[in-house]
């Protein structure tokens, strides 16, 4: 081919391309309408060596070096988790909002705390929280050990007045005095309470979902529909852009453009922790494991069903502020939405069977009750 020939072809190409580019840079023009983009099949998915977004089967639970797991500590943590005496009015325990019968969440839009007060946000499940590197919707705690101190002392949650109040309450229960001595060689402290509860929570994991088996190499573990749904998840739906890693969360913060309901309490999300403008109205990506068991959804529980969540993302979120550029109109078909939801249901793993333990009897401690009465009188 001569150089002149190359040049001529080039100019022809440019002429054609110019028409195309002017007509519609981001789409196909009439001339290309017969052209079908290569389609993606579940069979192609099966050939991927690793899944994108580091999606994988649940690994072993990470355990912090300063709080190793042991059976006695886990048992103590379980007792504390279910004990309503860890709240000022002896009405609520961790299990009130993290109910084993409700996938360790509460099935309410917003958490109900001290004497029926409504919190601002939806109770997240404790299931698999041990895998997360950020806790709370705004990430104000990094570890479970830090996290579980929060609700104990939060005035609209369990409302214990301070560490001394909590310690007095536990010291009034001889069984706990003995357990803390055995497990920590110490009297109860806020840190020890937190370590014990966190140790118990590290047992609340849900391996063996059908997705886990698929990710581990059993290509028959998912149905064709679930595989199509996984393709939507890692492809057109771009869900795994944020819901990635073995626990289906990147532990990062985004605004989805949600619009707060009229009269909802003010909530600026991650901004309250960092005071950085870019964090305004952003919330942590939640895990999607067992997601079909943890309705309602979003940080404020404003979306009732999984179908509505998918519709929300499909329309590119709503018009709220600071919306992430990763949230855009998806144009999913009815079939793709159904496939996606089928896939999400394959993320349900083996739920831990936990029964509320028998509580230690209490010897009324004068000091603790005085504090209580003072508080209520105020």
């Amino acid at each position, binding site marked *: 081919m001569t*150089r002149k020939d190359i*040049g001529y072809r080039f100019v022809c190409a440019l002429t054609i391309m110019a028409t195309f580019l002017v007509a519609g840079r981001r789409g196909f023009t009439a001339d290309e309408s017969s052209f079908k983009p290569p389609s993606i099949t579940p069979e192609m998915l099966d050939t991927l060596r690793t899944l994108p977004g580091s999606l994988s089967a649940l690994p072993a639970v990470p355990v912090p070096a300063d709080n190793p797991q042991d059976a006695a500590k886990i048992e103590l943590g379980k007792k504390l988790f279910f004990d309503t005496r860890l709240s000022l009015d002896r009405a609520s325990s961790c299990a009130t909002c993290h109910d084993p019968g409700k996938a360790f969440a509460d099935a309410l839009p917003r958490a109900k705390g001290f004497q029926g007060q409504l919190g601002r946000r939806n109770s997240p499940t404790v299931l698999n929280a041990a895998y997360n590197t950020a806790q709370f919707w705004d990430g104000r705690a990094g570890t479970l050990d830090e996290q579980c101190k929060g609700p104990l002392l939060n005035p609209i949650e369990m409302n214990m007045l301070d560490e001394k109040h909590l310690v007095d309450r536990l010291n009034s229960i001889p069984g706990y005095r003995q357990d803390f001595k055995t497990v920590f060689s110490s009297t109860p402290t806020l840190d020890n309470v937190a370590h014990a509860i966190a140790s118990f929570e590290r047992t609340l994991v849900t391996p063996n979902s059908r997705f886990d088996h698929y990710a581990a190499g059993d290509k028959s573990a998912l149905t064709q529909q679930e595989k199509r749904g996984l393709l939507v998840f890692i492809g*057109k739906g*771009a869900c795994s852009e944020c819901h990635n890693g073995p626990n289906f969360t990147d532990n990062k913060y985004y605004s989805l453009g949600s619009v707060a309901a009229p009269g909802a309490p003010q909530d600026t999300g991650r901004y309250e922790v960092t005071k950085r403008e870019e964090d305004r109205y952003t919330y942590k990506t939640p895990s999607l494991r067992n997601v079909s068991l943890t309705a309602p959804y979003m940080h404020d529980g404003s979306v009732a069903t999984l179908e509505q969540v998918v519709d929300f993302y499909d329309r590119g979120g709503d018009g709220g502020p600071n919306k992430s550029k990763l949230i855009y109109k998806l144009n999913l078909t009815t079939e793709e939405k159904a496939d996606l939801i089928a896939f999400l249901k394959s993320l349900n793993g083996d739920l831990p069977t936990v029964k509320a333990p028998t509580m230690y009897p209490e010897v009324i401690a004068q000091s603790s009750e005085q504090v209580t009465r003072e508080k209520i009188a105020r």
Partner: protein
Amino acid sequence: MVAFAMLSMSPAHAGTVSGKIKLANIPDPATSPAAGGRENVVIWLEGMHDAKPPETPVKISQHNLQFSPEFVIAVTGQKVEMPNDDDVVHNVYSFTGSSQFNLGLYGKGEMRSITFDQTGIVDVFCSIHHQMHARVFVVPTKYFANSMPGHSFTLTDVPPGRYVLKAWHERSHMIEKTIVVPASGSVTSDILLENGAQPATAARK
């Protein structure tokens, strides 16, 4: 032919070609709503035989569900790498003429690459994310520059010879000029871009 004879000699001597890119009746890309980042002006020389394409590959990343950058210039035979830096899969393909390709499904941390042996513009898409679109402008020589209207361009280390300097802009006629690069020294050749659409419309009336 004179140019070829000179080119085949040792490239001990080399010159510089530079110039300014001026706008005639083209809307200012900074303010025109139609511009959308399409301000690229590609300048290259024709009339030489490059020994081999540059070894450094051109890279188009897939990041945040966009190609990045969305416009690259590659030399024929030069490797164009397309790494997936997203947490989703992509399927990169093109239906552009003889440069058609389909890189298949691949995920984060994986890379596929391709080379083009035809000059021209290759439109690159993802079959999953239809909003993703990149263009590879394939030129026949490593003596090229990417500039913008109102800016200047410089081609360095050009072997002495007679060349056709070409300039492309999306909304301009193709510019072609013959230039002679001396054994040493520089050539200045300004480029005046003119809107290609307007005169054509007028001529039909």
